[in-house]
């Protein structure tokens, strides 16, 4: 049973524009949410996280928004850069740090 869902398998965006990646979850016990970026042949790289007590967290070009009532979070990347082309995974955990991952969204940034 997929508890974390990324319904868009791919996203293409022009360089300099905003990338918006979406993620939905079903488990009400999740209280911590993370986004990872992954290049082929590498491990996931931690990007940004958000606790359930917040609705927004910002770090440079990356902002994560959390809507608990809708069980939805999104990652905004602005401005998008060619180096942002990668697979992005949404992940969630309860207090035990055990991560459940979404299927991933492949982002392609066009020059």
């Amino acid at each position, binding site marked *: 049973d997929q508890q974390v869902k990324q319904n868009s398998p791919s996203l293409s965006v022009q360089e300099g524009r905003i990338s918006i990646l979406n993620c939905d979850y079903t488990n009400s016990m999740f209280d911590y949410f993370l986004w990872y970026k992954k290049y082929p042949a590498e*491990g996931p790289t931690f990007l940004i996280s958000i606790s359930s007590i917040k609705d927004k967290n910002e770090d440079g070009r990356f902002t994560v928004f959390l809507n608990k009532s809708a069980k939805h979070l999104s990652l905004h990347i602005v401005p998008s850069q060619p180096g942002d082309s990668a697979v992005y995974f949404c992940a969630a955990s309860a207090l035990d740090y055990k991560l459940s*991952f979404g*299927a991933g969204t492949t982002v392609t940034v066009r020059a």
Partner: protein
Amino acid sequence: SAVISQKPSRDICQRGTSLTIQCQVDSQVTMMFWYRQQPGQSLTLIATANQGSEATYESGFVIDKFPISRPNLTFSTLTVSNMSPEDSSIYLCSVVHNYEQYFGPGTRLTVT
């Protein structure tokens, strides 16, 4: 962030054999996990590597197939036993450091 290394980075193995993957962290960490990413799939948690005690396995994973050792707070091994082609995956260790979870580079295993 924590610096995590894994050995080997990749391997090609014959069915029926076993492979032990090592994970080394540059600082002491309490929580360490092993994940698997099968081809075209997302990451799935295999087990929690507990220091000084038996690993805790997730549903669908058993100790006989994936024995794990955690002799200290900086090192762990995962063995993939009696391999079949279905075990072809990327195996990743992760650690919790300063409340965030970081991943190693992964071990790409191909079973023929």
